[in-house]
């Protein structure tokens, strides 16, 4: 069984979410300028641009790591690996791949679906999705760092590491208890 290559998302530099934030930012910046004057307005701009600039090398590294991992690690191999493992090791491997695999929802959910098709249990799939959501490095490097800085992001991720494993265990308990059973189980 081969998994079709995940469709590539057409990347755009702008979208509706960004438009809304841009509008809010513009209004807020205008309000700050009128209320507090030019000096304060510039101080905020310089402070935030400095943070942004300091994070750029990491953002670029995150994009490059994501691009190379996508090319070097065939998703089918990953799916087979997770699908054939079981027990606690299966959960850990699912969490590890959630951390490693780059990409947005359009690439992650088909991989999770392939795990199921390859025989992975619901717990491993849940652990994988939660892991990608909470500790995936591409999101942390590319998005979170420029907004929050290194210390805060490191701290948040350290606190989040046990969560995907916990989610996987809870999912297994729920399935055992009869919640969300597949038809025919």
């Amino acid at each position: 069984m081969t998994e079709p290559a995940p469709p590539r998302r057409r990347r755009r530099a702008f979208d509706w979410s960004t438009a809304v934030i841009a509008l809010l930012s513009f209004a807020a910046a205008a309000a700050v300028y009128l209320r507090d004057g030019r000096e304060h307005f510039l101080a905020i701009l310089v402070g935030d641009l400095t943070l942004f600039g300091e994070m750029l090398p990491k953002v670029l590294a995150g994009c490059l790591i994501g691009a190379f991992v996508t090319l070097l690690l065939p998703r089918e191999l990953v799916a087979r690996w997770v699908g054939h493992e079981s027990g606690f090791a299966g959960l850990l491997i699912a969490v590890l791949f959630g951390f490693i695999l780059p990409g947005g929802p359009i690439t992650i959910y088909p991989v999770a679906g392939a795990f199921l098709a390859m025989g992975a249990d619901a717990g491993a799939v849940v652990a994988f999705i939660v892991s990608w959501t909470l500790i995936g490095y591409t999101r942390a490097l590319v998005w979170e760092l420029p907004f929050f800085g290194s210390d805060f992001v490191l701290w948040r991720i350290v606190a989040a590491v046990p969560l995907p494993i916990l989610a996987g265990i809870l999912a297994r308990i729920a399935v055992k208890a009869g919640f969300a059973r597949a038809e025919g189980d």
Partner: protein
Amino acid sequence: MVTLAINILLWLVVGALAFFAAMRGRVLLNDGARDGAIEFFLLLPRIGIGVVGSGYIAEVLPNALIAPWLGPESGLLGVAIATLGGALTPGGPVVGFSIGAAALKSGAGAPQVIAYSTAWALYAIHRLVMWEVPMMPARIVWLRAAVSLPLPFIAAALAMLLGKP
């Protein structure tokens, strides 16, 4: 120090991956470098707007209102409010991270902001509806949503235990 160490580590990883790609052929190396660079330039305007914007949004947010509800002293109630807010925030990463960063800058507590961004990451309504529901079997979506419920609270609690960075 931490920043420099992270930079060095990241670029070592980039170097190692580029080396492996080059071993498998020049084309793979070029493709990886090009894909990564394109992604970077496409993301720049969005991240830039969000980062600079969140600074201004934080300035106009009423500090007197944020601190009692979401401040470090707001405790479990603050975490619960932040979790609910995160789960209900629509939109992509620009929105979630801009709001989180603005809240943090205008006086919200760090554990509360962690609860917000964790809940937003787990439940972001538009991602759930647009991607997860169509692409995953319904029972997995429900199972995932159900077992995710306690996670923002646990993340906030663990963050409090670890102490401020």
